């Protein structure tokens, strides 16, 4: 088992004909992901390495039963593309696009929440990898093998760093989920941790957070009340000064709110062990699962 993406994934990529969209779509396909279609308005009839391109999500769903969307279009078109995918009946939407305006994200989030059965992962995220099954996004799959550690993270490269530390100690992953670095992520730590808790393959959950917002604090409360599996945490940004956006739109300490210290403390007060470096995260995983 794994979560969110697997052999049943039927992927449709919005922005498949763009440079980045094509590159990563084909990477995903080579990995074994079932990429059934792409969407680029005005380019219906073309194909990308045999993957048919349509003008609308509606048609990609009608013709190929696409059940997962990946959004690769530029920020000004991304919110619209997410809404179109949801309207076409797709229930899992993975938005890679970085730089979507916050008010767009807020409207999309509110609409999808009202629909109730559509899950958005991202935006501004590296996607989801279930090793050995499917890769939807830009995670470099070569570093990860199948295993029992579920990883959920707000950052891309930091996930690879932590994943690599785990791999060097012999651990593989059930799934790796990037929830993204924006102020209004479609899925929260809680949403993904709940899935890992219910996934039989996952025996340990690693959550990698960073400064800004309060998603880690909320996750700490949730874990204490609802999660039976061990969780190891990591928080980036102890040295970040207040009021400065640290690369990710959502990574900002506002006044005394959203500091790394407060997040680590919130997790530790609920019994979640927090590594102070990526290496320590792997060390703690070894202690819990055995080396």
């Amino acid at each position, binding site marked *: 088992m794994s979560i969110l993406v697997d052999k049943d994934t039927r992927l449709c990529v919005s922005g498949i004909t763009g440079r980045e969209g094509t590159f990563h779509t084909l990477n995903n396909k080579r990995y074994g992901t079932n990429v059934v279609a792409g969407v680029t308005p005005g380019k219906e009839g073309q194909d990308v390495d045999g993957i048919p391109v349509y003008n609308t999500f509606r048609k990609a769903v009608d013709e190929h039963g696409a059940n997962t969307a990946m959004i690769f279009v530029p920020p*000004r078109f991304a919110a619209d593309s997410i809404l179109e995918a949801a309207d076409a009946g797709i229930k899992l939407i993975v938005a890679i696009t970085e730089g979507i305006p916050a008010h767009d994200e807020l409207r999309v989030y509110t609409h999808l929440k009202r629909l109730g059965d559509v899950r958005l992962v991202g935006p501004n995220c590296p996607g989801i990898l279930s090793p050995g099954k499917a890769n939807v996004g*830009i995670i470099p799959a070569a*570093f990860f093998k199948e295993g029992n550690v579920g990883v959920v993270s707000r950052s*891309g*490269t930091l996930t690879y760093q932590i994943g*690599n530390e785990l791999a060097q100690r012999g651990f593989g992953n059930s799934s790796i989920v990037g929830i993204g670095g924006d102020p*209004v992520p479609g899925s929260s730590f809680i949403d993904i941790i709940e899935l890992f808790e219910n996934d039989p393959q996952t025996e340990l959950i690693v959550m990698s957070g960073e400064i800004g917002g309060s998603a880690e604090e909320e996750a700490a409360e949730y874990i204490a009340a609802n999660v039976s599996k061990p969780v190891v945490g990591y928080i980036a940004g102890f040295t970040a000064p207040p009021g400065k956006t640290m690369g990710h739109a959502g990574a900002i300490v506002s006044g005394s709110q959203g500091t790394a210290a407060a997040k680590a403390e919130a997790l530790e007060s609920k019994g979640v062990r927090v590594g102070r*470096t990526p*290496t320590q995260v792997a060390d703690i995983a070894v202690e819990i699962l055995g080396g």
Partner: protein
Amino acid sequence: MDLLEYQGKQLFARHGVPVPRGGYAATVDEAVDVADGLGYPVVVKAQVQIGGRGKAGGIKIAQDRDECRAHAEAILGMDIRGLTVRELWIEEASDIASEYYASFVFDRAAKATLAMLSTKGGMDIEAVAEEDPSAIARLHIDPLLGFQDYHARRLCFEAGVDADVVRPVSALLAKLYEAYVAEEAMLVEVNPLIIKQDRSVAALDAKVTLDDNALFRHPENAELRNPSAEDPQEQMAKERGLTYVKLDGDIGILGNGAGLVMSTLDVVAQAGGRPANFLDAGGGSKAEAITSAVEVILSDPKVKAVLFNIFGGITRCDEVARGLITAFEQIKPQVPFVVRLDGTNDQEGRQLLADANLPNVHTAATMDEAASKVVEVARA
């Protein structure tokens, strides 16, 4: 992006939020000209992005031209908590009967916009929230419904707004929300919102934070400047499209991906070092971007050593190595470098560096080792 008071007021005015008449001045003569045009008395206000301007002597009332000149001379060039005043806003003085507080803020935790109104304005709202939380009326706005008249009335009645000004305060709130949405702000705050002797209302101050990700839709906002807050390295990085934040230490940092760079800063700090900057070279960094980034890092004279921490995903380690080699050819750095390359094409990258045999470049196998090493060479 944080706006200065005058920029915020001009933005408010575009959306019909009432603000006192005023004008911009960068010199003493300009200040006097603006004041003459407005008529006396006027208020001379320092334009720097920091609280406590009034207490620091950065806001003064002038009854006539001589006073205006004297105040402008005193305030221009003044240092307010580390920021040098380079700009003034001159506005008509207001007859204040009461001071309220109003704001709309993008509430990440609630995933909605939070509206706040209080009759205890003119002071630090966080202090009010702590001492007397019931003095602040709050409600969340559904982004798909927008701010309705009943929202405004509810805020006014809950906050205890004087009955005779419920209408003008409600109208101001509606215009303020309109500005918040139309300009894609993360925060619009009016403190104080004043009730004048004639019972009209106005925004006497303006605090606005805009969403950087939305600036492409607002080219006129993207051009707004804040000369007192501009840092030469941050400016240089911005022009080159690099994500850079200046810090106060002496170890230059370059990495790929915001989370990994934040983590690198932390690991360096744990090793006893003090990072000079945050620099995310981004995913898929090409050699030219790396060379350009090295120039920005080294333009900070405090930098004594530089750490490269790369975990290649889309970014290829051989490209990073090539960029570093070119940087050494072009700028001949005088400080030591520590380089850690891992991930995509790491073998090729390390080989390129070994072959180039760059002076004073050390390699490290892990992030922790790299951090200890850079702290050591920075001290040497």
